């Protein structure tokens, strides 16, 4: 009976019950009438005839009840029976059930995890009004990509662009909030008036930011986040207009943002997702400095391509109008969607992981297909017997269907649990390296997709044996049991599947191997400094209290002296910014005697006396800075080897280095040359570095403390010392220096760990598949081996037969897989560091690993084959 007809009947039975009942009533009545009439015509008294007719019928109500059961019997009852039977058969094969559940759960769990991450990070639109019209405007200037905008350029864009509106700037900042005598370090952002409306961040109450009311000297207005309002102000609506102290400046709370607003802004802005304080920012009319992040909204009808054309033209105009300012290198302004910019960096890694998880899912499916085939073959006889006993094809197919559905849904449930656990783990592991990580949650459509796929695979391969049976003669499998050879077709398919599994598992393995080498290379990369045993603490100064550079230096000297006195501290110095801190100073530098030659881009760090030896930066020539340099305001600089060689191949000591930023230009004498130092990222080898003394670039410093103590144990003493030195602000970010290094390679570590998990899953699944197939094939050949043994074949010959089979499967899989792996390795080239995509040692290691795994997988079946008792094997069925 066809399924549609069956469903129609089920509905008929359930919903047109009244009609059926009356049919039954009448039918039974006529039956009894007829019997009674027959008895009466035989001469029985009417009353007695009726009574006997009823008795013979066996009770009208009982008959009705049984008929009702027949109505239901074909549908619900069978389903329940199938379900019960399915659970029973699965329980009877715990090994098979466990392996299938585990395999599918791994596939589903991995896929759901990865694609939930990708959907949150890459594809789900930003939670802002018409998010695809919000663009990030990138400024490439002085040969530096994404150098940020100069303030006057933003003003010009606001005035002249016909396609962009709400051109806004923003920048992340740290804020020291003081209220009710309690200080707290919170994340802040300084933004122009348009930014929050652009992102749809309305105020819950109070008024929006308005920089025009912020006349210098007056109290500034700020907006606070909903969470800060609840945390610090007890959700008091009267908070509007209240004065608080932020960074030692009096500020007035203008309003509170609506709850749940998160700022998804490019990392280059230094802003975090949870900004607690929003400062209004005006825009100065100057091109002297740059570094502002700009976002804007496309006007209705405008496209990004049109906006880019306009921006290119405007950039050219700026250069033409201000030839002095833009004399070193061109200005290039481009726009792209904000979401694209947010996800740009993470995209290659996420696609690699998604690819790897795709392989896990594929292998899981192949594995299950294989197991299903093996089990189906083993069950041929059971099915044949059931069929001989009268079970219809539909009935058998439906029962197998139920069994597989139970498996797939069970696996789906386990897989989802796995996914929620691994999402939590990824959350911890990824740290800040995943864009929009707070949005990551198990994703409905992905769950549906993964479960549908696995259900499809289990059903397809689960049903194959049943369908094969339906088409064949009933007695074939019954007889096949005796002659004991599986159909050659099935064996070929199974071998093919194992080869596919091995091939599929090689690709993620090779990628993982390459990433591992990359990570090792990153860890061992010569940074030019040694962060071990160094604790750092950021030391903000109250700039209102110490407005002049000259005043700040003695304060820092005092702080460092107090830190030096802490027990357990070996040496103390300070520098800023620290290597791999999120904010770095990039400058264009050149030879002082060649003002017309465009210089080279280098990173700059302000360092105090003693910093270089403390962090182990090797001074190859010349001397360190001294306190006298600062006191005497000597124009000195220390450069690294790379900078020295690029500008003065003949020797750089005592030469004059020109540092130009904006229109100002400083000339400094090189007094020292160090080993190459990397500060932007571990991978970034190309950018040279130089150090300037405090008086050349007096910024907020970070203390570096050589100690055997941990950051946590030293923190209270550091805070106390800084407090006693009367800096006006508290020390913060007290953490080991190597945490900056670890953070800077955190994205690679994240990628590596997740990839390793996926690759391990692939290998595990492939080895389970290999083992299962070998074990199955051998169990089918028990009789053959028995005959061989009986005829005098030695055990080694049998073992080698099995091992050869395993080696053949692994070998052919490996050859196919390596071809795929080479293609994949080429695709992930940009994620690698100091490793060629075709890295021979990685390939060899992967092959060795696979060989090991396949030997292990073949060992047990081979051992079992060797222990076959010829006598027993010939008798067993």
């Amino acid at each position, binding site marked *: *009976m066809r399924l549609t*007809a069956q469903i129609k*009947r089920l509905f008929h*039975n359930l919903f047109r019950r009244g009609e059926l009942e009356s*049919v*039954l009533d*009448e*039918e*039974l009545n*006529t*039956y009894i*009438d*007829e*019997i009674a009439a027959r008895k009466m015509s035989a001469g029985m008294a009417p009353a007695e005839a009726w009574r006997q007719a009823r008795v*013979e*019928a*066996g*009770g009208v109500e*009982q*008959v009705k009840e*049984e*008929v009702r*059961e*027949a*109505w239901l*019997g*074909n549908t619900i009852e069978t389903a329940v029976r199938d379900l019960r039977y399915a659970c029973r058969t699965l329980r009877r094969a715990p090994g098979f059930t466990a392996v299938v559940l585990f395999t599918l759960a791994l596939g589903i769990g991995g896929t759901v995890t990865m694609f939930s991450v990708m959907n949150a990070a890459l594809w789900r639109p930003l939670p802002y009004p018409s998010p695809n019209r919000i663009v990030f405007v990138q400024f490439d200037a002085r040969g530096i990509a994404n150098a940020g905008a100069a303030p006057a350029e933003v003003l010009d864009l606001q005035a002249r662009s016909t396609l962009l509106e709400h051109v806004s700037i923003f920048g992340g900042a740290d804020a020291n909030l003081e209220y009710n005598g309690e200080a707290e370090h919170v994340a802040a952002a300084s933004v122009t008036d348009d930014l929050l409306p652009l992102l749809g961040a309305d105020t819950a109450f109070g008024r929006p930011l308005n920089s025009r009311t912020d006349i210098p000297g007056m109290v500034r207005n700020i907006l606070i986040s909903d969470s800060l309002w609840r945390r610090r102000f007890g959700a008091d609506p009267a908070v509007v207009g209240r004065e608080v102290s932020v960074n030692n400046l009096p500020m007035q709370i203008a309003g509170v943002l609506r709850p749940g607003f998160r700022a998804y802004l490019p990392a280059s802005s230094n802003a975090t997702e949870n900004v607690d304080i929003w400062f209004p920012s005006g825009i100065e009319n100057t091109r002297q400095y740059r570094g502002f992040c700009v976002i804007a909204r496309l006007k209705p009808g405008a496209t990004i391509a049109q906006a880019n054309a306009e921006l290119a033209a405007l950039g050219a105009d700026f250069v033409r109008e201000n030839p002095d300012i833009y004399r070193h290198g061109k200005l290039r302004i481009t726009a792209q969607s904000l979401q694209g910019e947010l996800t740009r960096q993470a995209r290659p890694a996420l696609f690699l992981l998604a690819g790897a998880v795709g392989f896990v899912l594929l292998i899981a499916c192949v594995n299950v297909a294989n197991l299903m085939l093996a089990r189906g073959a083993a069950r041929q006889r059971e099915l044949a017997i059931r069929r*001989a006993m*009268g079970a219809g094809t539909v009935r058998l197919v439906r029962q197998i269907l139920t069994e597989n559905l139970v498996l797939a849904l069970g696996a789906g449930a386990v897989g989802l649990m796995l996914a929620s656990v691994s999402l939590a783990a990824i959350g911890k592991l990824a740290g800040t390296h995943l864009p929009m990580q707070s949005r990551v949650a198990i994703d409905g459509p992905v769950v549906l997709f993964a479960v549908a796929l696995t259900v499809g695979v289990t059903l397809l391969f689960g049903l194959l044996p049943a369908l094969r049976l339906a088409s064949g003669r009933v007695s074939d499998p019954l007889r096949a049991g005796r002659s004991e050879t599986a159909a050659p077709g099935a064996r070929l398919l199974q071998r093919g599947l194992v080869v596919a599994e091995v091939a599929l598992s090689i690709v993620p393995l090779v990628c993982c191997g390459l990433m591992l080498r990359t990570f090792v290379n990153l860890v061992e990369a010569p940074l030019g400094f040694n962060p071990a045993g160094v604790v750092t603490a950021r030391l903000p100064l109250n700039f209102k209290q110490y407005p002049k550079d000259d005043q700040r230096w003695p304060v820092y000297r005092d702080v460092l002296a107090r830190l030096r006195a802490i027990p357990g501290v070996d040496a103390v110095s300070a520098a800023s910014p620290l290597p791999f801190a999120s904010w770095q100073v990039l400058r264009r530098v050149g030879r002082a005697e060649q003002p017309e030659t465009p210089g080279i881009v280098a990173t700059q760090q302000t360092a105090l006396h003693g910093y270089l030896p403390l962090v182990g930066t090797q001074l190859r020539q010349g001397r360190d800075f001294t306190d006298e340099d600062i006191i005497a305001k000597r124009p000195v600089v220390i450069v690294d080897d790379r900078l020295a060689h690029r500008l003065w191949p003949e020797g750089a000591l005592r030469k004059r280095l020109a540092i130009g930023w904006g229109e100002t230009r400083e000339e400094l004498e090189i007094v020292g040359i160090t080993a190459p130092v990397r500060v932007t990222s571990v991978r970034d080898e190309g950018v040279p570095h130089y150090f300037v003394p405090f008086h050349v670039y007096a910024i907020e410093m970070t203390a570096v403390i050589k100690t055997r103590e941990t950051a946590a144990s030293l923190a209270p003493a550091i805070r106390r010392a800084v407090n006693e030195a009367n800096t006006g602000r508290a020390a913060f970010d007290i953490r080991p220096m190597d945490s900056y290094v670890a953070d800077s390679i955190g994205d690679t570590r994240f990628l590596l760990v997740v990839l390793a998990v996926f690759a391990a899953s692939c290998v595990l699944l492939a080895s389970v598949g290999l083992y299962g197939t070998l074990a199955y094939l051998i169990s089918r050949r028990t009789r053959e081996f028995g005959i061989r043994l009986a005829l005098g074949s030695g055990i080694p010959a049998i073992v080698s037969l099995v091992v050869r089979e395993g080696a053949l499967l692994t070998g052919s899989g490996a050859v196919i897989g390596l071809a795929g792996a080479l293609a994949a390795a080429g695709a992930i080239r940009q994620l690698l560091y100091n490793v060629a995509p075709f890295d021979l040692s990685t390939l060899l290691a992967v092959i060795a690993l696979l060989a090991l795994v396949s030997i292990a997988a073949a060992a047990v079946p081979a051992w079992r084959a060797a222990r076959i008792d010829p006598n027993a094997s010939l008798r067993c069925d």
Partner: protein
Amino acid sequence: MPQSSAELMKGTLDLLILRTLDLGPMHGSAIADRIAQVTKGTFQVKAGSLFPGLHRLEQGGWIRGEWQQSADARRVRSYELTAAGRRQLATEKTNWKRVVQAMDQVLEST
């Protein structure tokens, strides 16, 4: 008589009904009579198994019931085989023969 009638094996009733209806449309008691007549009283099909059997076969789509006038002008529910029923009859017949053969071989082997 009921004592001497054979226990019907599960599943054989369906085969009996299908085979009987293969001769032509019939109503409930006529089917029971016909079976009793052909088997010379060996199989006495009672209402308690006849009607559930009929309805089960109808649910399965193998037979179709319709109200008709009987020979003595009473309204009876008459059943006839469907095309699927005919096919089912053929399969069940083959199966049955195989079982009987097998049983014979078992019972008569020495």
